[in-house]
């Protein structure tokens, strides 16, 4: 019976340890999740900028394509 009691106590400790570990894991998880949201937001921002830049470039490319041969001819 004494040995059983000791075992039960050991399990109590192990359970407490497990609880702490899962708690720690959840903290880390939340940090990583926050980082992930930030990455996603920055990516969205960059994608928006890329789109804007592309819209700026397109007419310039069209202009370059039309004026360059014209100047060669002139």
């Amino acid at each position, binding site marked *: 019976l004494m040995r059983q009691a000791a075992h*039960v106590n050991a399990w109590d400790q192990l*359970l407490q340890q497990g609880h702490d570990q899962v708690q720690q894991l959840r903290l880390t998880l939340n940090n990583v999740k926050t980082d992930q949201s930030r990455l996603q937001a920055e990516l969205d921002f960059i994608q928006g900028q*890329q789109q804007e830049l592309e819209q700026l470039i397109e007419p310039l490319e069209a202009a370059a394509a039309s004026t360059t041969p014209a100047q060669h001819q002139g």
Partner: protein
Amino acid sequence: ELQKQFKQQEEHAGSLQASMNTTQEEITQLRHKHTMVKAAIQEAKWKQANLTRRVLKLVSAQEIERKRGVPLDQTEEQ
């Protein structure tokens, strides 16, 4: 008494297992999203390389035009 403690521990272990499962599920979701974010960033990198190439082409074309245009204007004025 010991039996009661056993019972408690079983409950404790059960709830611990439940929160472990929740955590595992969340981590699985996190990984899934991570894969998508990673792919999207790779795509943004490719797009960036493409934009860089196009901008440099425009810049060099304009540079050539400018160097071609400026002396011509001066000769025309003379």
